[in-house]
């Protein structure tokens, strides 16, 4: 795994992978969203309002997955002090924040017709909101501390401490009495959704995962190139002084 963590090798591999990931993201996103909006049958109880799950469930799942990814990358950064791990966590944070914001927004639009309110201080909703603040806090650390190495250490601690929130989000519907329904896909005994509704949902989840891979690769590439730019700027300044 360490050989892929070499920035130059990473850039070479990333340049090959990203165009394919981008094409697959666009295709799967278009198919998933179209299927969810127009082809999947109406729910006999919730009518067309249930179509919100085709974007809400993938966004919610990805909001937690990305934070988990950040926590693992941060742990690797702390233990092996590899800058690419820190950069990966940093690159993932804005994507995770967007997924979390979308999960909260689409969830509130689901809540109004289903529960009669856009928001309630329910355990699942509140812990998801805490996740959004954790993302903001993590991003804030990177913005606030100029020294990159120090920012990486502090941000990694924020990511690792915040990871405690992930099982709270996941099991909040089991531990507390909440308005939010319990798991209906990832549960023992298999999914309790009809295949005609499950397939577009799985395609949307795949599309959101591919989107994450594509965008994080772009963002990591950007961070690596910016590091190289700083190195070259220092070299240019030194050579400029020698010529002067």
């Amino acid at each position, binding site marked *: 795994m360490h050989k892929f963590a070499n920035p130059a090798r990473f850039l070479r591999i990333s340049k090959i992978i990203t165009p394919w990931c981008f094409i697959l993201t666009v295709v799967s*996103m278009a198919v998933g969203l179209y299927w969810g909006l127009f082809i999947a049958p109406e729910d006999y109880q919730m009518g*067309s309002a249930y179509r919100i799950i085709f974007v809400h469930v993938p966004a919610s799942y990805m909001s937690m997955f990305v934070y988990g990814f950040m926590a693992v990358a941060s742990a690797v950064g702390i233990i092996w002090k590899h800058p690419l791990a820190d950069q990966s966590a940093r690159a993932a944070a804005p994507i995770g924040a967007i997924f979390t914001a979308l999960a909260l*927004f689409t969830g509130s*639009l689901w809540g*109004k*017709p289903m529960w009669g309110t856009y928001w309630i201080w329910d355990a699942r909703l509140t812990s998801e909101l805490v996740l959004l603040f954790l993302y903001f806090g993590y991003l804030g650390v990177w913005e606030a501390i100029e020294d990159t190495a120090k920012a990486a250490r502090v941000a990694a601690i924020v990511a690792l401490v915040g990871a405690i929130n992930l099982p709270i989000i996941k099991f909040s519907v089991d531990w507390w009495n909440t308005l939010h329904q319990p798991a209906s896909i990832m549960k023992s005994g298999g999914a309790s959704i009809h295949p005609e509704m499950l397939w577009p949902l799985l395609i949307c989840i795949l599309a959101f995962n591919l989107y994450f891979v594509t965008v994080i690769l772009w963002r990591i590439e*950007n961070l690596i190139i910016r590091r190289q730019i700083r190195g070259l*700027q220092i070299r240019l300044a030194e050579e400029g002084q020698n010529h002067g």
Partner: protein
Amino acid sequence: MGEYAIFVWPCYISVVILLAGLGYTSWTAKKKATRKLEDLKHQLDQLDSQD
């Protein structure tokens, strides 16, 4: 979609706009950084050739 269209459409539209927006800004930032790196390499080559 009937009476629920007012809830369903904003969800899909916000997903498309936000994800496309973040994707576009990430891609353009990478492109911009790549161009800047090429410029700096070019400047460095020019300085080296003067020696």
